[in-house]
């Protein structure tokens, strides 16, 4: 029963929302809005609490065991300082919360994002080694795209941009669309399997 009941709820809500989604009736729209936005936010708020408790417990446990202490302490300071700043001084434009957000959190996120530039370079170096026919095709396509994006392309050959655009719009887009059709059908069958109760892994254990 512990598995059967959630399965019934899932199937019921899934098929109802599926029908409601394609209906133009205002009541159907309201149901869709309530369930997808309202219910989901409530569920997420409670789950976030579970996540924060788990995060705090995990880090406190690690500190007690003495593993990666500096990182764990930094994580916990970050976790508790932001709500503390928000509760004490509010979240208005000139509050410490916004200052920390603008001058600590945003720069740190940008730093991690900036690492991507170096990782793209190192991954490209490995990927563009022409060891096989597909790797050579990848190398040639990448070079075409790279050169076409710079001024050098049109200096070398007037139709360079057109050739690169054709590579992007024809073979590359055709492959992408083929993958997208597969993904669409895969999503559909996976959803149906869940709604019909054929796929029950997400339900976890009986006990």
């Amino acid at each position: 029963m512990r598995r059967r009941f959630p399965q019934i709820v899932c199937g019921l809500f899934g098929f109802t929302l599926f029908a409601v989604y394609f209906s133009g009736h205002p009541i159907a729209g309201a149901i869709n809005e309530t369930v997808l936005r309202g219910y989901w936010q409530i569920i997420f708020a409670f789950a976030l609490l579970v996540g924060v408790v788990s995060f705090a417990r995990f880090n406190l446990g690690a500190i007690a065991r003495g593993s990666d202490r500096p990182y764990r302490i930094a994580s916990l300071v970050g976790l508790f300082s932001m709500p503390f700043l928000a509760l004490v001084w509010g979240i208005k434009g000139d509050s410490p919360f916004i200052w920390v957000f603008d001058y600590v959190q945003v720069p740190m996120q940008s730093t991690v994002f900036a690492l991507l530039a170096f990782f793209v370079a190192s991954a490209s170096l490995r990927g563009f080694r022409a060891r096989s026919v597909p790797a050579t095709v990848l190398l040639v396509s990448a070079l075409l795209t790279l050169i076409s994006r710079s001024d050098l392309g049109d200096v070398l050959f007037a139709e360079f941009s057109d050739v690169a655009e054709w590579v992007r719009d024809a073979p590359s887009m055709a492959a992408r669309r083929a993958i997208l059709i597969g993904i669409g059908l895969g999503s559909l069958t996976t959803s149906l399997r869940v709604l019909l109760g054929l796929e029950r892994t997400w339900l976890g254990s009986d006990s």
Partner: protein
Amino acid sequence: MREIAGLKAVEEAVGRATEMARPVLYTPGWGGDIQRPTTIASLNILSHIAEKTAQYDCRLVFPTHDPVIMAVAQEVVRESYARAGQGDRFSEDDICYVSSSQFGYAAAVEGMITRLKPASIFLLGTFEAESLILAEVGNTVGAIQIAGTDSTIQLAFFIVACDYTLIGEEVFAASGYLSQDASILASVRAQDVLKILIAIFLVGAILWATIDPTSGWWRF
């Protein structure tokens, strides 16, 4: 069902981690939530991998950006450990929520990979810009990496940086492939039939548009 190299390598990846006495790291990416079919498909694969790690007595670490996914994954892994007869070895702390922020999540998982040095990394789910950061850091620690996603833009990064990549629909077919469950395999078969029908329709539509029989050019 045809052989999927990435899934065939699961046993090898878990075995390698066991031999090296290092953990297996599995993460479903930042791009999806529990409502997304890709996340469900990823959790199905997680179930099989967790069973293997339980059998081999290998540690499985699962960091995620979403507390709902964390709660579901804890149940999935607990069930897998129980199925393998190793229920007492399951550690809830290894299935953890790290951050909802994209680069906070990327930094946390990157840090875990650098410190734990997992022998095998599974990047299966919906990924966005963090995909290459994780795959490249995994590469630097010498982990065998099996990736799969429904994000077509990130697929290119995974193909370049990982050892095996499940492309799009293979992520969804993985559940049937690993479990060999007849009903799931039947749905994969239905998926293939639908794909053939779509291909026939597309070819027919292209021919129709090219020939354009309604224009009447063929009358003379």
